[in-house]
């Protein structure tokens, strides 16, 4: 069975500093990876996704993630964070079951706290 491990439950960082949120997944033949963000009292919003092609994927708000097959990792990075980036971040892998249907398997989440 596929699984996702987020190595840090909490990451405190000062504003304008760089940040990396770590994610490792269990190996599979085909891997589709996602990062979702959850602001307080809200649902999940897709931040970025890796489906195929370039191993470096970017979001519109400055985040990027790199798919590393040999290390089975999909770490999320941002060179300079803002207070507004404070949120819970979830890494997820898409698991396909019979019939072609899929479900998302999530990590436990990493709480990013940006301090002034």
């Amino acid at each position, binding site marked *: 069975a596929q699984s*996702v491990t*987020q190595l840090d439950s909490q990451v405190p960082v000062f504003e304008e500093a760089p940040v990396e949120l770590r994610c490792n997944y269990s190996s599979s033949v*085909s891997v*589709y990876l996602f990062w*979702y963000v959850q602001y307080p009292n*809200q*649902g*999940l*919003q*897709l931040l970025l*996704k890796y*489906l*195929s092609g370039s191993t470096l994927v970017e979001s519109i708000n400055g985040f990027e993630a790199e798919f590393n097959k040999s290390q089975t990792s999909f770490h999320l990075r941002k060179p300079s964070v803002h207070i507004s980036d404070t949120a819970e971040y*979830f890494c*997820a892998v*898409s*698991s*396909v*079951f019979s*019939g*072609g*249907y*899929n*479900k*998302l*398997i*999530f*990590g*436990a*989440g990493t709480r990013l706290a940006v301090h002034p």
Partner: protein
Amino acid sequence: DAGVTQSPTHLIKTRGQQVTLRCSPKSGHDTVSWYQQALGQGPQFIFQYYEEEERQRGNFPDRFSGHQFPNYSSELNVNALLLGDSALYLCASSHRTGANTEAFFGQGTRLTVV
């Protein structure tokens, strides 16, 4: 496009009661999945509906059941509520197009069992 909408946003129930949560998928989507997110944890897959049938189920007891209507909207029912059922319940909609399909999530329903 209103996106995925869920109702109600908050709910308080007593142990042993039954609850129904509702979800309307994003326009054009035909597949609805439900997830349970306990406090401090990542979402856990409950089940998925497509063409009004349950297609896959996660590790949840039969107290959790669902339904999908012809207009693709969906309900999640939980019977004999336990304190441990307190969680944020998230609905996600998508197209049944395989593992690379993108799921859109609603704001969730916060269920508190007392």
